[in-house]
């Protein structure tokens, strides 16, 4: 009996093994590897092995001694090619602006240089090597793991006396996280306010009408996100349809600013995400029979009490599923705010894309992505705690 059970269990595991393996290789491993980049410092430490070994002994104040200069010179001459020097320069430039040209000039200077590689030679190529600040960066970054990007994602940096906040003109990411969460909450609430009555009407009307309404909800759902967003630009722009109609009707004198601001983002994102709330909610409402509400009303409960104490608890799984779906999708929104928002309405995904493709700083991209992932996990855990994990699954 026990053996049969164990065998059945084994067969079960074998049956899901391919999908588990698939998940591991194509989901967990790449995401994990990318997230590791947020603390990875091997590019730097690996490129300067001799300097990194020596620099721990330096006091951080005076000009380093000859052996450290020699180590740096040897590390530079050992770089395989100019692109290796370029990535080293780019990496150090994340810590201190100006390092990029210092590294490139040193690399090309040493190629032409003959004789010893020590202090005199390096300072002759670029006098910035006589500035301890440049050496302190290397000293600070001598470990295989670096907190640089994670700190920067929280508007922090390492100073001489420990971790401190960065100057206000460079602060952004804490605000950005709050903004991202806030826009997502607002869009979720807007979707709920608009979607709940819609789903209710769909669920309670006759089959013909409800299937037509379902088509109307699904039609935009099947349309490309870009098309829907650009349609809003046409409608909301300064001389767009909405402003023209309002002006013709004499309701406004000058065109309203409806787009390239937060309002535009709310309108477009709510429209795009509405089906994700309506569809799960509709399926739950469809399964709720009228018996209980009729019974409650028959026993003398006023309509508001029937709604609050009898109907709402029954459709709660649909509300939670729809809202969490919309919220999680909204957290990662990128194209819609980019097209209909102003620069102050961009969300965190915009900066992840910026660090991935424009500024090529994958450490920053990975830390911001990690923080976003953490937000989703925390939200999920909080919801699970609040309502129980099994209720999160839509029926």
């Amino acid at each position, binding site marked *: 009996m026990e053996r049969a059970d164990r065998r059945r269990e084994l067969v079960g595991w074998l049956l899901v093994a391919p999908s588990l393996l698939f998940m591991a290789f194509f989901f967990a491993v790449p995401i994990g590897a990318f997230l590791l980049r947020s603390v990875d410092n091997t590019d730097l430490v690996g490129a300067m092995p001799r300097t990194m070994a020596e620099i721990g002994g330096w006091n951080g104040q005076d000009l380093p001694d000859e052996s450290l200069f020699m180590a740096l010179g040897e590390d530079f001459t050992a770089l395989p090619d100019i692109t290796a020097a370029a990535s080293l320069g780019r990496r150090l430039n994340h810590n201190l602006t100006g390092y990029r040209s210092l590294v490139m000039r040193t690399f090309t200077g040493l190629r032409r240089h003959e004789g010893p590689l020590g202090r005199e030679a390096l300072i002759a190529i670029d006098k910035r090597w006589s500035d301890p600040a440049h050496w302190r960066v290397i000293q600070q970054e001598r470990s295989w793991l670096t907190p640089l990007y994670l700190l920067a994602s929280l508007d922090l940096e390492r100073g001489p006396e420990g971790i401190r906040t960065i100057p206000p003109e460079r602060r952004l990411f804490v605000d950005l996280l709050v903004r991202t969460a806030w826009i997502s909450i607002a869009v979720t609430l807007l979707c709920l306010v608009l979607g709940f009555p819609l789903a209710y009407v769909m669920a309670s009307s006759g089959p013909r009408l409800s299937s037509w309404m379902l088509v109307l909800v699904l039609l935009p759902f099947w349309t490309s996100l870009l098309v829907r967003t650009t349609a809003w630009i046409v409608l909301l722009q300064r001389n767009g349809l909405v402003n023209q109609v309002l002006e013709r009707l004499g309701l406004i004198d000058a065109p309203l600013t409806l787009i390239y601001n937060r309002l535009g983002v709310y309108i477009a994102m709510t429209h795009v995400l509405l089906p994700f709330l309506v569809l799960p909610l509709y399926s739950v409402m469809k399964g709720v029979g009228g018996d209980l509400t009729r019974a409650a009303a028959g026993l003398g409960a006023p309509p508001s009490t029937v709604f609050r104490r009898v109907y709402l608890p029954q459709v709660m799984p649909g509300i939670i599923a729809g809202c969490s779906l919309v919220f999680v999708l909204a957290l990662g929104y990128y194209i819609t705010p980019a097209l209909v928002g102003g*620069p102050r309405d961009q969300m965190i995904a915009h900066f992840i894309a910026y660090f991935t493709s424009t500024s090529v700083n994958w450490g920053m991209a990975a830390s911001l992505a990690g923080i976003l992932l953490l937000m989703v996990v925390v939200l999920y855990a909080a919801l699970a705690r609040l309502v129980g994990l099994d209720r999160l699954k839509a029926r």
Partner: protein
Amino acid sequence: MKNRMTPALLSVIGVLAFGLADRVYAGETLRIVNNGGAVAEASREAWYEPFAAERGVEIVEDNWSQEYARLRTQVETGNLQWDVVEITLNHMSLACNEGYIEQVDWSEHLDPADFADAGGVTDCAVPIMSVVGGLAYDGDVFSDNPPKSWADFWDVETWPGKRGLLFRASTLEIALMADGVPPDQIIATLSTPEGIDRAFAKLEEIRDHIHWWRSGAESVQILATGEVAMAYVWNGRVATMNKTENRNFRYAFEAGFVLGNQYLAVMAGTSERELAIDFITYASSAEPLARFSNRMRYGPPNKQALEFVDPELLKTLPSEYMDKAYIQGGEAYIQFWIDNLESLTQRLATWAAQ
């Protein structure tokens, strides 16, 4: 059953054969990346098709928006998708310095003196269009009292409406110009922390009135729809819009303007180095370059091309205001942007989003 299968089978075979035939085509291929849109069309007409026909090669196009990462990752992974790349001055300097594009002795292929007036060929690249960036407005809107200076651009009381600016770090140069810094002092000023703060303080003055644009098409579109009252716009876009859409966009060149080049360069490590050099030599030579200029409405950086250029085009260029020009280029300019492109791009992005 058998009968029903036959057409399906045939079509599968057909597709396979077509795919194979495509592979079998043995001629040389040159892969070129450009800035897309109107540039792609003009490049195709003026350069790609004639060159492909003349040399019996196939040209494969791609486009990019100067995302440096795409250039860099191709070279670093050794998985090249491009042989020739169209690139702006800032990125060209950086890529040439960091070894992502090939160093070429262009004097073996063309006469560098022809390009000297427009900034010249560099260690890596040849200029193919001289882009003027200036203060543009709709002449039909501001017919009585047109803006004449960058101070007017900043004056949102007298000239209400939004202002279009390019969302790139180089816009800090415009901010300093508007703050009264003479063109030859701009890079020196930006090189100090106080100068950078000064540029951002200038942008702060009109922060809520700025509409940032990211592509040339967007810059004229916001001007055309009235979304902005004035904008910093590249001249080819304005000339094209006036010509094809019959608009009356005008420039206040007397306010001062920016002059910078676009370049063609050879990807580092490409197996088609010689063909790529031949293509760039061809594209930058008098007649093909003039064809391209006439189509794009940008000035040709090769003076030999001038005689083939549409006289109407020359009239749109700010030739009589050259004393007001801020010319992007030179050793100090290039060194500055190599070090600061990344940090200032990030600071601008941060500032705008704050």
